[in-house]
């Protein structure tokens, strides 16, 4: 009798759970699960533009088409490069900021708030502002570099094939650095300060502190944050779409933008779905790692 008594009154009424969960679950199934499943299926069928009905089974036709599509290959390469560079920069700059903010000094709270501004500013505003700063005629970046003598003539940062992707990477990293910094800072503040004292008493240096206390303390959160940022950065659409639309000459094309343009500018929805499926497969690697890692730690 006793163990049964111990069960919460709430938990015994599991039928309520279904009543509470069903509306939300239904909505999520309709707007996420169904579109995902149908999206995957549609990559194997032909279909008239903007119609709900599949015409006939196409097998791997769209996937084979993609192998010969240079823009597609480039977009996947760019996406991987973009994600790797942006996440790496975000993490290391974010960590540096977190370590600085973890020191004890006056005005720390104000700095912490100010640091967050790039993360708070809406993507559309950030993209437009950077576009203006990168402007080839009157952009402030050219003007400053010119004054400092780094360049002798204006560079069209977003308009040349060699710089466009890198220019957007800077914006993307800038925007997400605060998130990494604040998440790491929150974790650093939970590290037992007594441990640092212990290292000092044992005659350890700052490097020892970092290697044996800071690093183990932030290892778990670093892995989850990097995995999340990898997924988010890979799926990012707004910045590239607004700043370059994948151009010039597809040089900054990334997979999400190419999927979107294939579907809504070139009206090849099934081919777009195939590109989306490839992205889904790529993103599922960090996604599975993330879920696996979270479960293990629980």
């Amino acid at each position, binding site marked *: 009798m006793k163990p049964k008594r111990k069960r*919460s009154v709430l938990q015994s009424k599991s039928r309520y759970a279904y009543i509470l969960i069903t509306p939300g679950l239904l909505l999520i199934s309709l707007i996420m699960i169904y579109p995902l499943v149908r999206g995957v299926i549609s990559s194997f069928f032909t279909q008239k533009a903007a119609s709900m009905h599949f015409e006939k089974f196409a097998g791997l036709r769209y996937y084979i088409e993609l192998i010969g599509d240079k823009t597609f290959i480039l977009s996947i390469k760019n996406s991987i490069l973009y994600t790797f560079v942006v996440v790496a920069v975000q993490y290391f700059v974010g960590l540096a900021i977190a370590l600085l903010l973890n020191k004890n000094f006056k005005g720390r709270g104000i700095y912490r708030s100010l*640091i967050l501004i790039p993360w*708070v500013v809406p993507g559309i505003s950030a993209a437009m502002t950077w576009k203006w700063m990168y402007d080839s005629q009157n952009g402030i970046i050219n003007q400053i570099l010119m004054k400092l003598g780094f360049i002798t003539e204006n560079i069209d940062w977003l308009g040349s094939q060699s710089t466009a992707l890198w220019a957007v990477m800077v914006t993307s990293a800038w925007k997400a650095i605060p998130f990494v910094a604040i998440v790491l800072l929150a974790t650093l503040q939970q590290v037992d300060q007594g441990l640092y004292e212990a290292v000092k008493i044992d005659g350890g240096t700052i490097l020892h502190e970092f290697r044996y206390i800071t690093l183990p303390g932030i290892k778990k959160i670093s892995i989850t944050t990097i995995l999340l940022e990898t997924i988010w950065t890979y799926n990012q659409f707004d910045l590239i779409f607004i700043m370059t639309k994948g151009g010039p000459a597809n040089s900054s094309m990334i997979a999400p933008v190419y999927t979107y343009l294939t579907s809504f500018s070139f009206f090849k929805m099934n081919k777009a779905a195939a590109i989306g499926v490839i992205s889904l497969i790529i993103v599922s690697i960090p996604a599975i790692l993330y879920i696996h890692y979270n479960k293990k730690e629980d």
Partner: protein
Amino acid sequence: MNKKRKIIIDKSFTYFAITVITALLNFPFLWMLTTSLKDSVEMFSANPTFLPKDLTFTNYIALLKEYKFFTYFKNSVIVSISTTLVALLFATFMAYGISRFKFRGKNVISSSLILTQMFPLPLIIITIYVTFVKLGLFDTRLGLVIAYCTFALPFCTMMLRSYFDGLPVELEEAAAIDGCGPFSTIFRIVIPLASPSIVAMGLFAFILSWQELMMSMTLVHSTALRTMPVAITMMVGVRNIMWGPLMAASVIVSIPVVILFIYFQKYLISGMTMGAVKG
């Protein structure tokens, strides 16, 4: 003596480094703000100053008069607030259900909630588009609100769930023994108790919908229903970009978000750290 000196050097380095980093991170936002307050002569000057020499609001006036920006602002407000309310309503019930009850499929549901946040949106939106055209939800505000639940609902549910997990169950049990059904328990006890987190999640949902571009651009076509991010994207012409009004518009989109952030900073920071830690 030596030790004291070392501390001073260390402190000055910290201040110097953090000040430089903060200035660099904030420069674009401030540059957007000051550009929007400059006239076109100053904006395109070869020797730009950081602050405008003559403060002018012409860009903002042009935005209202020539670009009919008030309509877009109004549309964004309506859609974002509606999304927030709908998402919170569904999310509170769902999060509470997952947090408090044991039932079959609970783990599957929790995992899929996290997974939905990782779906490539362009893949999802293809089907949403054709389905909405079929159902008559294309080019309506209701359609946009429903579509925005794709990111707002799973996110709010996950976050609220981890918050509910941390709340003590005793009060709710007492209420249940006194004969409160689950719905009145939620309204009388859980919502008042959890209101700070619910507000924080609402803010997240609002901020996300407020700046959403891809869905709005795809699912709404008429000018009268256009939201601000789409309107701003469309201000960029083929050759001539009107940077003044464009920066003014960017400021207008940013201001509500920045104000909300400053005001509710504590909740938002705990929300974002919680999200990363717990998933």
